């Protein structure tokens, strides 16, 4: 019985150490597992895949560095997909602290595909206003974004001269760490009919499934797994794919801990009776 007592009262620092090793070892040994693509991610992928060259996709950075490990790989995979298909990208965001992360990804991926700023993509930056801004862009983008991230007038870029509101944007990709996705659906989607899909953190993803079921959004990339699945579809391995074996190992370990903890609880409870 001492064994079950000890099992139920393991020092949490031992658990932290075991979890830490479970994260480090698969990364260092470069363990690989096959990645199965889910329907929700495939649906999101096809919403970009069926767009012709020259279409315009708006990507909204609605996260900050705290959610970067989950959403940054998604952003890179989506940018690679867009640039592969010669789709123009407009980067914006509702979270001010996330825009620099978007800029980093944009510059990195644009260099990989020899894309030129102002010709193939633009970063129009952040403006406060949140809901009012999302509604306002439906009327005229320039009411909020007369200049880009570097204070250059957006009309000095050829492809932006034809973009005035959501009618001129083919798809929105929202990368969500909070509730901003709801605002995009409620206002840009419902009021203006803008098509969209979301990449969301694991915490935010469950709240978006009702929109998917109601066909208000095209798809969902949920967490690091969603990023890995999208990378598989785009055929470009990134941090998402590298993290999946580790994720699987740690999940298995957590399940074992939960089983052992519960076993210890029930054995001790039976002993007390």
């Amino acid at each position, binding site marked *: 019985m001492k064994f079950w007592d000890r099992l139920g009262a393991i020092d949490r620092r031992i658990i932290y150490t075991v979890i830490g090793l479970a*994260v480090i070892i698969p*990364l260092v040994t470069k363990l690989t597992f096959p990645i199965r693509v889910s329907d929700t991610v495939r649906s999101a992928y096809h919403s970009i895949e069926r767009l012709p060259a020259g279409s315009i996709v708006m990507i909204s950075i609605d996260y900050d560095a705290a959610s970067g490990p989950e959403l940054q790989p998604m952003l890179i995979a989506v940018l690679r997909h867009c640039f592969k298909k010669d789709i123009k990208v407009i980067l914006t965001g509702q979270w001010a602290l996330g825009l620099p992360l978007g800029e980093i990804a944009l510059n990195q991926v644009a260099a990989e595909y020899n894309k030129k700023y102002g010709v193939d993509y633009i970063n129009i930056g952040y403006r406060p206003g949140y809901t009012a801004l999302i509604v306002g862009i439906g009327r005229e983008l320039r009411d909020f974004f007369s200049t880009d991230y570097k204070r250059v007038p957006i009309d000095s870029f050829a492809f932006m001269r034809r973009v005035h509101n959501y009618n001129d944007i083919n798809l929105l990709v929202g990368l969500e760490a909070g509730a901003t996705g709801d605002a995009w659906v409620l206002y840009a*989607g419902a009021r203006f009919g803008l098509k969209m899909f979301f990449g969301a953190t694991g915490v935010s993803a469950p709240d978006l499934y*009702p929109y998917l079921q*109601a066909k208000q959004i095209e798809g969902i990339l949920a967490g*690091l797994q969603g990023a890995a699945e999208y990378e598989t579809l785009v055929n470009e391995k990134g*941090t998402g794919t590298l993290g999946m074996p580790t994720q699987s190992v*740690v999940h298995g370990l957590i399940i074992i801990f939960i089983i052992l903890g519960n076993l210890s609880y029930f054995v001790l409870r039976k002993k007390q009776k």
Partner: protein
Amino acid sequence: MILNIIGTWLAAGLTIAIFSFLYKDNPLYKFAEHLYVGVSAGFGVIYVWAFDLKPMLIDRFVSEHGVERWILLVPAILGILMLTRWTEKFAYISRLPIAFTVGIGAGLGITGSVQGFLLPQMQATLLPLTTINNVILVIGVVTTILYFYFSHEFKGASNIILRVAIVFIMVSFGASFGYTVMARISLLIGRVFFLLSDWLHII
């Protein structure tokens, strides 16, 4: 190049300082935590000035003419009145801009919620009960809504509605919790990947 190296070492040091809390609370963790809060707040202030106040208020006030110029005084004054919240004597004045903000929020919120959430979700629940998925979905929605209907006490046989609802609610909580665990592990993987790849160059 040198700035990149300094930045990487700084980030790695702060990451390890935060992780040191797993052993026990210590001054290194407290320093890193306070630094994060301070830098985030400072960054936010700079961003609001550089991307909101200066281009949308000050620069536009200088460049616009006529009504488009003077109308900018309205949000400027409302914004300044909001700051009276900090004073005990004049705090009542801040009710004006707060009322304005709440009014806009309510107006947008009501129309958005009805048009973007209530009606589409109701429409999506009106499904033909021809497949097992549709049956489960409709039963789940109806029983869950009835669970939160407190004007009638469900007794006897009708209590089964509440029991079914509890199963659906618990399943959704379990799914949310599972997603949350996955998210937290993903964040840990991201940080460890940074330490092993960008800092130590092991992978």
